[in-house]
Every structure is written in C-alpha cells, then in structure tokens.
C-alpha cells in the first residue's frame, strides 16, 4: 500500500537518501547513457563484467527522486547477475523492487531499464569487437 502522505514509498526514499553505487567507474566494460536535459532526467550507468557476470555497477544521475532511486536500485539488482539474467530485468521489476512508483514517475524506471540495456549492449559490442580483433 502506498503511503498517502508521501509522494514516494519508503523504499524509494531510502534509496534516494542513501543511493548505492554512486560515482564514476574507471575503464568500465559497458556504459549506458540515456535521457537529456529537455525531459529533465539523465542517467549514466557503468558496468564491470567478469566471466559473463556483472561484478560491479555504478551510476550518475541528473534527475528527480525517482530517477535517483531507480538508478540506485538497478545497480544493486544487476550486481552478481549474468548478462542473460540482467537482460531480463524489466522496468516493472525495478519499480516493484522499490515498492512501487507514482504513475507519473514510471518513465524513470523505463530510463533505468534502458540505461542498463545500453550498458550491456555496449559491453557486448566491445566484446564482439575484441573477439573480432582476436580472430
């Protein structure tokens, strides 16, 4: 049940107040960049991948409370997952893990999902390229 006296769930506020995995990453294996200043949300997501498993994730976000919380949550969710498992994380799953989002804020969870997909795509593209170079 959403708390009627707060815009966000407790979980969102907790991630917003203490976001996990904030910051830059040196030499990330994959980077996802979504959003733009026009719509008010920009997310950058970095992942480290080892043996097909995401071993670390970091983010930087310009955006509202939901944007920050979903960024934080998605990094927490992916760490330890295989690439295949990570690709199955939907925006709904992120929102649910946060105890739900207000309808007008669902687009933030979409951004988080997109940032993750883009980071994985980036990793896969780099890997393919390296594989190609190694051939």
């Amino acid at each position, binding site marked *: 049940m959403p708390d009627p006296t707060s815009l966000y769930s407790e979980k969102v506020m907790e991630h917003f107040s203490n976001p996990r995995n904030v910051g830059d990453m040196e030499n990330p294996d994959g980077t996802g960049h979504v959003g733009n*200043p026009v719509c008010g949300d920009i997310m950058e997501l970095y992942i480290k991948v080892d043996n097909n498993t995401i071993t670390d994730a970091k983010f930087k976000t*310009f955006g509202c409370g939901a944007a920050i919380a979903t960024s934080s949550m998605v990094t927490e969710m992916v760490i330890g997952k295989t690439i295949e498992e990570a690709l199955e994380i939907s925006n709904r799953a992120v929102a649910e893990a946060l105890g739900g989002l207000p309808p*007008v804020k669902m687009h933030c969870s979409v951004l988080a999902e997109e940032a993750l997909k883009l980071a994985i795509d980036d990793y896969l593209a780099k890997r393919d390229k390296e594989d190609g170079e190694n051939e």
Partner: protein
Amino acid sequence: MTRIYLDYAATTPTDPEVVKAMLPYFNETFGNPSSIYSYGQETKGAIAEARSKVAGLINARDEEIVFTSGGSEADNSAIKGVAFANKSKGDHIITSSIEHHAVIEPCKFLERQGYKVTYLPVDEYGLVDPDSVRKAITDNTILISIMHGNNEIGTIEPIAEIGKIARDAGVYFHTDAVQTVGHIPTDVNELGVDLLSMSAHKLYGPKGVGALYIRKGTKLFPLIHGGDQEKGRRASTENVPGIVGLGKAVELAQQGMTEEAERLSFLRDKLITGLQERIDHSRLNGHPVNRLPNNVNVSIEYIEGESMVLNLDLEGICCSTGSACTSSSLEPSHVLLAIHLSHELAHGSLRFTLGKWNTEEDIETVLNTLPGIINRLRAMSPLAKKS
C-alpha cells in the same frame, strides 16, 4: 523537527484569527443568505461586511466584487465570461506567455472554440513590454489579460501602463492579482483594470474562496448559472464561512501591509545574497527589483529541482521547483522557458516564497542546509563533471 515553510506562494496557512472569525458561521449563524427569516439575513449581513472589506482593499465599490471559489474560477469567469459576452464585438484576446495555467488554459479552450489568442513574449526578467501590448491590439481585440505578480519568478508587471493602453483602445483589461492582493498595493483605479482576480488562500485566508472584481459596466456572462446570488453574476449558495474568512484575511492584510512587505523584502534579499555567496553556478530568476517582496527563485546548475526539494523536505524545509516533477508532462515550467532558461536550468530551479511566520533564523537554516545538499547531488550528477 520543526518545519520551515517557505512555499507561501503555493498556499498559506489560514491565520488563526481568520479561522476564529469563520467558526460561528458553520453551525451558529448558518442560515442561507437568501432566506428571509433572521437566520438567513444574519449571514447576508456577514457577506455584505466581507464584501466591503475586499472592495476597500482594492479601492472598488462593494457591488463590483463577486465572490468565487478561488483564483482559478475568477480567472475563468473573467476570460470566458468576457469572450462569450463580447463575441459580436470581436474574437481576439491578448495575454502573456508567463500567465498562470488558470489564465492560459481558458485561453487555449477559447482557441479551440474559434477565438484568436496572442501570447506575448517576455524579456529575460519576465517583463511584458507595454508597447508589445499596444502593437498586438487589433479591431477585433476584446480582452487583454496580463498578470500582476508572477507566481513563479515574482516579477511584477507594468500593469498601470498597460491599463492606460487598454483604456485608450477601449479594450477590457483583466489582471490576475492572486499573488499581489494583500501583499502589495492593488488599487484597481491606479492599475486601470476592469477585472481583477484574487484568491483567499494566498493571503492567509481559507482555500476554496476568492473574488473577481468587475468594473461597473463590464459586459460578461456568468460562469456558474443558476440562482440570483451575487446579483445573478455567480449562482450557488454562498460559502459564508469562506467569504467571512476572506474578509477577515483582507482586513488583517491591510493592517500591516507596508511593514510586512518591508520585512519580507529584507529576508528575501538576505536569502538571495546568501545563496549567491554560497552557491556557485547558480542564478536568480525573475526581475531583480520589480519583484514580489516574498519571492526568491534560483536555478542551480547541474542538478534537478525535485531532488533538491525532497532533500530539503527531509531537513524540514518546504519549498518548490519549476521542474516537471509531478506534472504528467515532462516539460518544465513554461514561465522559466519563457524567460529563455535552458531546459537544464529550468529543471534545476528552486522557489522559496516567504510569509508571515518566517524569521531570519529560517533564512540562516536554509543557507546552512542547502550547500551540502547541492554538493551531494552534484557529486551524483553526470552533468557536473563536465564543468
């Protein structure tokens, strides 16, 4: 934690004296003002008294005041009421690009009904150029609507000058004075307006009541048709406690207006200066001088407004932002875009609006709290690193 409320432009708490004045009208003197027995007539008297107070504050005649359910209804009544009643004279309306939604949306509605609307641009401080009004007037112009004080950036428009132009051209002139009535002088004759909107909850009165000033002779249709109330200009059983509350709020506002405006201007300037000193990459929005005494609006680079508002809320400070935050569109404030702010800066705006119960300590607290929040958020921002 004591909360520091700095969002008086969004709504004010109802002054305890106002609530006290309202209370007897809920179930002691509760009669319908249209009734002929004494229960009813007593409430009629109370309404007449409130009407006099409101008229007095804006230098109008009692019979030129129509009570409404708030600022939005007053704006809608003025704009649609004049448009519908003067269709045979013309179909053109002039307004500005920084009006409140309660003015813009009725205009957009009228556009869909075949009317033509000119939305005048403003300069970087949010000022409407009176000359641009003059130039926009055509033979078909039936109404000009320019707000008195802007609710977001606090800019005070040159209403008296525009009033002269409107008078010369014989065009009705409406001003949305929701943010100014009770805060700075709003004399309908000095301003030269035919219609003026106000709302009680912006001056320590209750929510759900307001008033529209209608200069004698102004032709407009009612928005709410029905009974004979308000001389047939606004049907519905009068909101007696609300109207009494508005009257009391106006009375209180009038008493100490000059002193309070000075006190707030001092606090406002202290906050503006403090923010400029302590926060780099920030800018003041709105006019530096022609400004509501209680309005501070700043844009903070690299970070977004809602996240600042939420962090301040966690520290017990209430303020607002022009970011898209809670609206279903992703667009930031049309006012901030109209003064040519980039989307990023518009999303990064914070508005502090001061009121009766704010003290210098409140300002200190904000100045001590905000930099830490900004640093934390900037550390999180992908835009900041690029600076």
